[in-house]
């Protein structure tokens, strides 16, 4: 197996906003890397640099063996890109869009037409293919967008939040498609805000926060660092908060997190449903009244909480900052 994407010391600043602070990671050919982080963590900037849309301030990146700043033309023959917003022409039909991008990928007229038909069928758009995109649903647009990025059979595919805004059914459909592509040998780099999505798709996850890589590893490794399931409970009387923590802390597999304002206690546990039964039993014995209790899987917030000690904040999106600098130089 060889390296499909290599990122080394990649740095990008937009004016005062430090979008990337020298990040490093590698993606092996034919695998999926999940780039996980909240808005503004640098996910999109990373993808845009790798797709040759932005030049980094420092560091280098190679895609398919080609340097993105020194040899962008070669990189472009290897990649497909699906951004957060549908990158297709509203006034054209699905087929016309695919044929246009096929021609611009330098496929022959015949091959563009053939590939367009293939992709429309594969993405369940055969019937809608000759209709204008204006009438497409959100899910159909996303599928067409993904089809457009596959027009040239790319060896490396970048998916920037491919399922944001999709309903659950379309989301699972998208996951199936991505899994299929990887089975055929495509390397995929996807960004997501959802731990579950990275968990489902990615063999390796890189967690970004404020432009830094704060963790990377397999989903299991990452979860181990977060501590598995957690019990979240809210006590009825704030006075009893500390007593509640004392009563149940021995059930937890890690340090409980207490939030006095919302009267909330978060306890990492490994026992799942057994642990929640035990918690309820003990609290009942100690006559501590609770308003709410639940057992849940770790979320991105939990990853951030355990890795950085702060909850994933929404900082100003890097694009907004970039647009503020009108007509900035590369």
């Amino acid at each position, binding site marked *: 197996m060889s390296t499909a994407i290599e990122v080394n010391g990649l740095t990008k600043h937009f004016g005062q906003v430090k979008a990337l602070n020298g990040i490093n990671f590698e993606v092996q050919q034919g695998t999926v890397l999940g780039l996980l982080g909240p808005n503004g963590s640098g996910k999109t900037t990373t993808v845009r640099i790798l797709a040759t849309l932005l030049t980094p301030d420092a560091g280098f990146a190679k895609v398919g063996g080609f340097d993105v700043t020194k040899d962008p033309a070669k990189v472009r023959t290897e990649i497909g890109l699906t951004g957060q917003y549908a990158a297709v022409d509203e006034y054209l039909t699905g087929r016309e869009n695919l044929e246009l991008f096929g021609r*611009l990928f330098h*496929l022959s007229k015949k091959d563009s037409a053939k590939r367009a038909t293939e992709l429309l069928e594969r993405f369940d758009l055969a019937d809608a293919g000759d209709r204008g995109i204006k009438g497409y649903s959100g899910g159909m647009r996303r599928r067409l967008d993904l089809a457009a990025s596959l027009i*040239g059979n790319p060896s490396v595919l970048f998916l920037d939040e491919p399922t944001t805004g999709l309903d659950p059914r379309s989301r699972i459909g998208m996951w199936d498609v991505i899994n299929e592509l990887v089975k055929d040998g495509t390397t995929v780099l996807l960004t997501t805000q959802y731990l579950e999505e990275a968990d489902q798709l990615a063999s390796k996850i890189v967690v970004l926060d404020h432009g830094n890589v704060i963790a990377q590893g397999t989903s299991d490794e990452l979860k181990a660092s977060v501590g598995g399931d957690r019990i979240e409970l809210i006590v009825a009387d704030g006075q009893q908060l500390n007593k509640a923590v004392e009563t149940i802390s021995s059930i937890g597999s890690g340090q409980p997190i207490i939030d006095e304002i919302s009267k909330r206690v978060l306890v990492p546990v490994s026992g799942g449903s057994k642990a929640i039964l035990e918690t309820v039993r003990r609290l009942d014995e100690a006559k501590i009244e609770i308003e709410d209790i639940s057992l849940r899987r770790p979320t991105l917030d939990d990853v951030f909480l355990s890795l950085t000690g702060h909850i994933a904040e929404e900082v100003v999106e890097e694009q907004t900052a970039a647009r503020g600098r009108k007509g900035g130089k590369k």
Partner: protein
Amino acid sequence: MSSQTPRPALGWFISDSLAVTKRHVIKITRIPETLFFALIQPVMFVLLFAFVFGGAINLGDGGDPKAYREFLIPGIFAQTVMFAVASITVGITEDANKGIMDRFKSLPMSPGAVLSGHTFASLVQNLLVIVMLSITGYAVGWRIRGSAVDTLLGFALLALFAYAITWMGAWIGLHMPSPEVAGTAGLAWIFPLTFASSVFTPIATMPSWLQGFAQWNPVSCLALATRDLFGNPIPFPGTSFPEQHAVALSFGYAFLILAIFAPLSVRAFKSRSANSRG
């Protein structure tokens, strides 16, 4: 990448441009209103000036309405060519604010082809407008009296000028934050430029401080060159340099605009799509 055929860079540039042209030509057929209003605008100006203002404008011949119309139509040609700027600004800003720009940038296509394809499609639209205007002109009594060669040269000059102006429109479009602003910004500067010219009135009737500007004004040059090539009347033939060399100067202006705004637009395109997204 499976079936890419080797081809020289210029060949790719042309075929990429044509693919983009096709995109925009399809778009014109999907929104026929765009073409309709582009066609109707010069017709309105012809009717307005031929029958409303025309009677009040003195060409020094005692106010012959027929002579004024022959004077007017080449002027409207020049004005219409300036309006070509509007045929592209909004579309360019719209594209620049959308994800499709990223798609183009990530494809192995010639980067300049996104703009050149768009300008080609605009040229197609503007040629249709010129044809429409010729028909309208003919209907109100305008006639071509020049030689066949001069006539061809006249239409070639109008087409070239319109094409150069679309590059200017592309450049403006790439600097506008939204299509709404682009719509106004593309046109705002055209009105003073076309009215302070020999499009509707002879320069000799303007105040002397304005005459120098009007003489060098590219729109005047183009109007005068068009009158000259189509063999239409030129009242108060001026003796200034731009009036004496209107045809050559008009070609010069067109090439100058092209030479300035084509590279500037390509540069603006690269930096805009590289650093922001809508």
